[in-house]
């Protein structure tokens, strides 16, 4: 057993609270360790000194004062049971006008927030709507070949490529009248 462990157990050893196994182990350590024996003597002296120091006497009339206050509390509340019962849930004893006002303001704020948010969201959808893709029909017209989107990579002018843009521009130009 290490000395720090032995010293931590001394308090319970003095109070005779140690289980038998720990007591035997401690006593075995104490037989071999003069430092811990000295420490044990010090703990015993310290505890004796501490316990010999009394507290001042209980103030006279303490019980009467406590009972008077208890009586006042119960008198103002009706009974101990009422005084001590768990706080009643707010939805059971109703709401005060302030609470109702607060709840109404909160609900109105939420409603306004939802309406404004919805409008903003709709507007942003309109303004940020993607440009219609470069006329796929025009590409198809130029080549006279129909390709599904997923096969567009195999065409000579895949969508979004420079050739496709070039073709779309030239096809527009060709339709313009000078």
């Amino acid at each position, binding site marked *: 057993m290490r000395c720090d462990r032995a010293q931590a157990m001394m308090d319970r050893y003095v109070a005779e609270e140690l289980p038998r196994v720990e007591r035997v182990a401690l006593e075995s350590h104490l037989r071999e360790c003069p430092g811990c024996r000295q420490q044990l003597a010090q703990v015993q002296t310290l505890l004796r000194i501490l316990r010999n120091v009394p*507290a001042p006497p209980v103030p006279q009339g303490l019980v009467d004062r406590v009972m008077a206050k208890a*009586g006042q*509390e119960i008198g103002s509340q009706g009974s101990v049971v009422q005084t001590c019962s*768990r706080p009643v849930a707010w939805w059971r004893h109703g709401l005060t006008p302030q609470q109702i006002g607060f709840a109404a303001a909160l609900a109105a704020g939420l409603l306004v927030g939802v309406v404004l948010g919805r409008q903003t969201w709709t507007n942003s959808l309109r303004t940020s709507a993607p440009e219609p893709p470069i006329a796929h029909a025009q590409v198809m017209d130029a080549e006279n070949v129909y390709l599904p989107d997923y096969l567009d990579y195999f065409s000579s002018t895949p969508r979004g490529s420079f050739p496709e843009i070039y073709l779309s521009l030239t096809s527009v130009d060709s339709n313009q009248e000078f």
Partner: protein
Amino acid sequence: MPSDEELMSAVAEGDLSAFEQLVRRYQRSGWNTAFRLVGDLHAAEDIVQEAFLRVLRAAPRYRPTAAFRTYFFRILTRLCRNHRRRNVASPSGDLDAWVSQGPAPEDIASSQEVHSSVNNALASLPARQREAVVLRYYEGLSYGEIGWVMGATRKGVERLLARGRAALANKLGKLLEK
């Protein structure tokens, strides 16, 4: 004689005489503990009164999962802790004052000197060490009970007590050598 827990059940049903029995049973240990933890006569009385009133208010919610004694000390030590937080300087003035009241013969004078030294040493301990020391060496609570009262593990209590004893031994060195 009814147990503390039986008295608490009666208090929960509005029996003030049961409450008075509890107050009478615990006034001394409550007072001693509060005084040793806050070191102020008036504050200690206020704290003890408040602790009993809280017991009264909480009686319907009390479940005997822990002994009433530890339940009471838990309330009391929390009130003492709150008091110390509000009054940062933990006074030891009353601890000294009450031992030096009145004329005393020389042999008593020397014991008063010892009392004063012990009280000063106790007052100088950090709050949690002081709580552990007072609950253990003056009120005789077990490590488990102190842990429940203070919200600490048994190991934590063991460490607090070991440090507390070391600090006290350091401050009371001369007394321990006698």
